[in-house]
């Protein structure tokens, strides 16, 4: 196939346009303080039917457990690390908790059928678009925020950026190397494929709950 590659690249080189535009780095500073960021995040997230609660480091796990109880979510999935440990410590009386501990191939049918809710942390949040930023890893695998019908995400309020451009600039993602998978998640799964009418919960979570920890 390298013959094809070389032929394509050669044609591109032979036909290089002369006009050379230089995009300036894109920034969109809004000058929002913490309260404005939380307000904007909450408003945007609620506009797409995401739930948002403000809570504290000591209380978030009990808040999450209460939400599970209220909504009849019995089987909860957690990964490893501080978020998982605190949820296990504070919530194991009210929900059945399972740890994501084996490769997905070994328990796919259970993951797809029996889990009601997953609890994960997140790397950051984006205020302007109401997005959660996730870098799933070996502690919190990728399918946790996708397969169970409910996803509870714990967001540290100090990690709420104004927007995507600000986050990339401050955190220097490109320089630090990208993870296997990075995600922006803005609300529960939805579609508008039938008559342009919004319907929620098509393939991913039907509800997305953000706990903002302050």
């Amino acid at each position, binding site marked *: *196939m390298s013959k094809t*590659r070389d*032929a*394509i*690249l050669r*044609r*591109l*080189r032979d*036909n290089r*346009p*002369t*006009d050379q*535009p*230089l*995009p*300036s*780095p*894109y920034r*969109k500073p809004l000058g929002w303080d913490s309260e404005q960021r939380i307000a904007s995040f909450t408003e945007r997230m609620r506009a*797409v039917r995401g739930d948002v609660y403000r809570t504290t480091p000591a209380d978030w796990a009990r808040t999450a457990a209460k939400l599970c109880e209220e909504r009849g979510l019995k089987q909860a999935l957690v990964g490893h690390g501080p978020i998982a440990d605190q949820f296990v410590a504070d919530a194991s009386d009210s929900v059945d908790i399972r740890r994501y*501990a084996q*490769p*997905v*191939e070994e328990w796919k049918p259970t993951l*797809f059928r029996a889990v009601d809710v997953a609890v994960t942390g997140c790397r950051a949040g984006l205020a302007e*678009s*109401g997005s959660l930023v996730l870098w799933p*890893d*070996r502690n919190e*695998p*990728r399918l946790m925020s*996708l*397969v169970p019908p409910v996803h509870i995400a714990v967001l540290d309020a100090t990690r709420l950026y104004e*927007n*995507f*451009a600000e986050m990339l600039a401050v955190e220097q993602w*490109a320089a630090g*190397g*990208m993870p*296997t*998978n*990075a*995600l*922006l*998640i*803005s609300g529960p*799964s*939805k*579609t*508008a*494929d*039938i*008559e*342009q009418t919004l*319907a*929620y*919960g*098509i*393939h*991913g979570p039907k509800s997305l709950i953000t706990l903002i920890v302050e």
Partner: protein
Amino acid sequence: MNQTEAFHERIDEALHNDQMRRNFRSALSGIQAKREQQFPDDAQLQALREQARAVRANALVKQPELLEQLEAKLTENGIRVHWAENPEQANQIIADILDAATAKTVVKGKSMVSEETGLNTYLEQRGIEVVESDLGEFIIQLAEEPPSHIVAPAIHKNRQEVAQLFHRFYPDLPYTEDINQLTETARQILRDKFAHADAGISGVNFAVAETGTLCLVENEGNGRLSTTAPRVHIAITGIEKVVEKLSDVPPLLEILTKSATGQPITTYFNMISRPRQAGELDGPQAVHLVLLDNGRTRIKVDEQLLDTLRCIRCGTCINYCPVYVQLGGHAYGTVYPGPIGIALEPQRLGIDQVGSLTSACTLCGACGQVCPVEIPLPKLINRLRAEAVNAGREASPLIGRGALRNKTEATSWKLWRLVYANAFVYRLFALAATRLRWLTPKKLGGWTRYRSAPKPAKRTLNELARQKGFRSE
């Protein structure tokens, strides 16, 4: 049947399908309203468009180096890169990957490039089950139809039609015309597919050279499931989708989602940089990227046509096109419909194949005004029209130039010019046209197919003006 006749036949069919035209009208006016809400400030919109244009144009200038950098980065990250000249090669590459992985079932996210290559049919003929997992794509796969729009593939169907389709294929599930219920039905059917598929296939919205990252934009989560749950992920994209830096992505993402569907951002923005790493518990064990040319390097030969390649496939030009709303996507008979289709397809496939498409444009300019990367679509379409009937232009890379030149038409324009160039002949002609107006034929070819024939006035404008006392020579 030649391409023009075939096109007219499809147009005829579309114009007689009132239900479909109602579906289009209501869907498109809704999308337009949502988009306009996202851009309350015109100065901001123009600044963002300029930024997006510059990012795309810059990437096209540096394209060969960026593709090399992308390949090197992806390879370093553990993603295999494949190059394909044409659809056959691309399909072959994908089939070989699936064979090597003994993959028999595939879940697929939406990909217009795979429509270009006819991938589904190709794989199915080799005994591989391919399930489209985007709801719109799933619907048209059941209906055995191609997409009618590049962003909303099932836009031409209303809820009753979808309900009947589901009922035909899944008679055991309760019949419903409720959109939420229909969505739930699709969820149930497709969940099972995600859990069992051997491989996932997706498109790519932006490929970042700097980091070796494949970016995917979607709302449903089917794209994430297709690229995460199966053990193999194959992405396919046109070579023009590469961008230079990760910091180029935020403005493109913003203007793409706001333009395409009127959302400030989509539910999921998925950035994939490597396959599953040691110790990770899910994600595909192997990730492949297929880079397809399929005529794109030829477009690059010409600085004016090059603008076409800035396209980010948002579909906005389609949503605003007054011709598309009357015809729908299928009438065009090509993978890409609407203004971008008219500009792209004759370049990709040749004027001699699909040049007639250029006639499906009123040059109203709406598409050029909304395009987020400022592609001068009306200018491109006009140029293609000229080249369709005139092979004389110098140094043009277009295939099939002059293919639509029609002797009768060319002769009548020549006569027209003669008449207008000679004052005496012109006056004679005007006199004949007005005094002999009763001789005007009732049928005037294509014109009278959907309209009544025009009749010349009793007196020429010149005569009327003179009667009113105007004098000028």
